């Protein structure tokens, strides 16, 4: 099996009296690329954390291929679900290859060494994100964009069937934004990712979930749900939505409050 099915059923997550996520349901069918969009603080990261098992939902269930993600052993989970999180890495002089090799850990027994097969998987993961030339460089000397690609390579080395990414295009220049999203799109794996850029989300995702104040306000194929009305409601700005003549994807243009000139 190369792709998992994810279903989030009525997940609610609170921090003190505040609702971070309120009664969210979401599904990702095997092989789909699902985008989470919404303004800052809308609950995208929190929702993702309930999926990759860092924040336990107060109510509701996260199921991967029908099994409750939160009752699985962490190690077992890591063989199915990989994540690229927004958490900085420490400066402990690891080479890029060693960082990517971490992705093999859930598949290794105690004291087992790296096999040629592991080395091959690490190489191909690095190639997939166009980072093979970085393999011997110290990780903490890389630029933000290079780091992000290496972290995606680490997730790929985990051989997951569900890949969860929190703003994977942050810090990337536009060329690498496109190349990273292109890589994710081509993966046979099911992908769930939070994205800031609505146009990129519209182009690369099969379906989108729009979060607002911890709740899903709209979901469906980008062309169906990205409307000026929704964007006004969720982001509080005026926008025009057209269809790009070359890509065929919805094209969002935000309109500033006061016209120029």
């Amino acid at each position, binding site marked *: 099996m190369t792709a998992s099915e994810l279903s989030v059923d009525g997940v609610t997550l609170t921090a003190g009296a505040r609702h971070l996520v309120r009664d969210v349901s979401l599904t990702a069918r095997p092989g789909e690329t699902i985008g989470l969009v919404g303004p800052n603080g809308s609950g995208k990261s929190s929702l993702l*954390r309930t999926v*990759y*098992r*860092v924040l336990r939902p107060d109510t509701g269930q996260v199921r991967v291929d029908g099994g409750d993600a939160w009752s699985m052993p*962490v*190690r*077992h*989970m*890591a*063989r199915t*679900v*990989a*994540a690229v*999180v927004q*958490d*900085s*890495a*420490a*400066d*402990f*002089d*690891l*080479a890029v*290859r*060693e*960082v990517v090799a*971490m*992705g093999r*850990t*859930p598949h*290794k027994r*105690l*004291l087992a060494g*790296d096999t040629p097969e592991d*080395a091959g998987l690490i190489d191909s993961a690095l190639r997939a994100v166009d980072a093979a*030339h970085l*393999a*011997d460089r110290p990780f*903490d000397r890389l630029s933000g964009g290079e780091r992000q690609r290496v*972290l995606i390579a*680490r997730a790929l080395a*985990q051989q997951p069937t569900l890949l*969860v990414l929190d703003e994977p295009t942050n810090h990337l220049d536009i060329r690498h934004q496109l190349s990273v999203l292109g890589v994710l799109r081509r993966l046979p794996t099911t992908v769930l990712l939070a994205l800031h850029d609505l146009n990129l989300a519209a182009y690369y995702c099969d379906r989108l979930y729009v979060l607002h104040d911890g709740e899903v306000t709209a979901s469906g194929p980008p062309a169906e749900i990205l409307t000026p009305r929704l964007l006004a409601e969720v982001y509080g700005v005026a926008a025009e939505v057209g269809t790009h003549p070359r890509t065929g994807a919805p094209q969002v243009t935000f309109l500033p409050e006061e016209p120029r000139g």
Partner: protein
Amino acid sequence: MTQAATGTSTERTVHRRKGTGSGTGRTRSAVTLLVLAALLGVSVTAGLAIGSVHVPPGQVWGIVTHALGADWQEPDWSRARETIVVDVRAPRVLLGAVTGAGLAVIGTALQALVRNPLAEPYLLGVSSGASLGAVSVIVFGVTLFGPFSLSVAAFVGALGALLLVYATARTGGRITSSRLVLSGVAIAAVLTAVLDLLLLTTDRGNETRAVLAWTLGGLGGVNWGTLWLPSTALLLGVGVLMAQARNLNLLLAGEEAATTLGLDVARFRARLFVVLSLVTGVLVAAAGPIGFVGLMMPHIVRLFVGGDHRRVLPTAALGGAVFLVWADIAARTIAAPMEIPVGVLTALCGGPFFLWLMRRDARRGTDRGVA
């Protein structure tokens, strides 16, 4: 645009020329291990040879092999020399090697567990906790666990101090360097004050002197009968940590990432805290609180073998052993016939090292850098 493209292609050529990455790393680490092992052999020989009575290295090996039951040299030394080398110096040198190796691996693991390059058992007050535990046993004459009372109490003290520092330094799932070091210093100060109070109010004059000397860290007073306990603790510590080396690596990725890579971080940390406190407790009970070895060694060996714990742990252990054996030689000889507590010497080296490390991290401007 063109420039960027040229840049990338140049990088590629450079790295292709450099060859396979992991292979070179492994070779470098093997070479480092071999060099350190040879250095340890030399250091131990020096430790056995140097002292108030100088024994030539060749004779040292004659005596050692003779004591081990293999006579490759006709005995041409006096009984007194044999006693000095085998019964007086050997246990002391070995305790130095064991303690140095132990402190180095504890420091390595602590730095990963609290995700902070300034972590070290002495700086974090863990050694003070162990001292207080051990001294309470001496002062109050507790013998609940027979010959292990001292080590058990030191273990309990170490674990208590470690948990206290960790709990006070951690806010919002993060530990900044400044907060970690400050709470370590504060807790060490309190524990040391309690310890001083204990010593001043107790009326056992002779013991006070002995304890005072011991709290400065020293390798004297060990014999063959007591060496096995710290040695066992070291083997246990190194064994557990080597088995967990991959998981220690995962912690370098951050707590959330480590979880997604299959590590139950809270449970892992709790278990290792217990193991590290146990080893620290036993080592402190045997040699007193010796500072900065656990801080320096991991950083020095990382310069040679990189950050992978499968390489850092064994090299740090050997490096720590070499370092402390030499520190003890210096402690015995610099002001002979007076003996300087070895902890004073390690602090003399370690303090400046700490400052350098702090400045380096500030320059690098890492997220956890000293705020």
